[in-house]
C-alpha cells in the first residue's frame, strides 16, 4: 500500500524532507513505518523514538495498522502556545 508521510519541526529540518510517499506491505503498522523512516534517515533515529504518529489528523498508537491512502504525520514533541 502507499501512504503519504508528512514531516514537521525538528524532524523536517533534520531530514530536509517535508513529505514522502512510502510503499509498505498491506498489513504494516506505524512502527513498521518508523523503522523504514529510521533506515532512510539514520540521523533521525533518536528523535523518532519520541515522535508521535498521526493518521488522518488523529494521534494513534504506534501499533495501529495503516491503510492505503492514509496521510501519516510524524510529529515531534509539540510546543505550541
Amino acid at each position, binding site marked *: 500500500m502507499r501512504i503519504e508521510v508528512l514531516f514537521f519541526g*525538528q524532524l523536517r529540518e533534520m531530514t530536509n524532507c517535508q513529505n514522502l510517499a512510502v510503499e509498505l506491505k498491506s498489513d504494516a503498522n506505524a512502527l513498521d513505518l518508523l523503522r523504514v523512516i529510521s533506515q532512510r534517515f539514520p540521523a533521525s533515529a533518536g528523535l523518532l523514538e519520541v515522535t508521535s504518529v498521526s493518521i488522518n489528523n488523529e494521534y*494513534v*498508537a504506534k501499533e495501529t495498522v495503516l491503510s492505503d491512502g492514509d496521510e501519516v*504525520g510524524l510529529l515531534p*514533541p*509539540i*510546543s*505550541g*502556545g
Partner: protein
Amino acid sequence: MVELTDKAIDTQAILVGMADHSTGAVVLFLGTVRDHAEGKTVTHMDYEAYTDMAIAKMKAIETETVARWPIRQIAIVHRIGALQLGDVSVAVAVASPHRGEAFEACRFAIDTLKKSVPIWKKEYSPEGEGWVEGIIPEIREK
C-alpha cells in the same frame, strides 16, 4: 471560532467578537514572545503547524470547552511564521455569565492547546537556535 493565521493577531477584533449581552465576564489570554528562555536571550521565533490537524484539534478544544462550561463565546487563534519579541503567538478568549467559569474555561483551553495541538516553535538567540522542548501528546481513545 478557531483560526490559524500567519498575520498579526487582532486582539481588538477578538474582544469585539466576545460581545454578548447574556455574558457578564470576558477573559482574554495572550501568549507573547518572551526575550528569555532557560538562561538564553531570545531574539525571535519561528512557529510551524500541521495546519489541517491543528485546526481540527483547536475545534475539538472549542467543542469540549463549550460542553464543560456555560460559555457563550469562545475564540482560539494561533499565529504561525516568524514572530518577533512581544508578538502575540496565541489568543484565547471566552465570554460567560460569570467570571469563575470564564477563568476556568480559558485556562482549560490554553492548557489543552499546549498539550494537544500540533504546532512547533523554534527559538533564535545569539548563542544559536533550537527547537523548544515539547510535550508528547496524549492518544485519546475514541
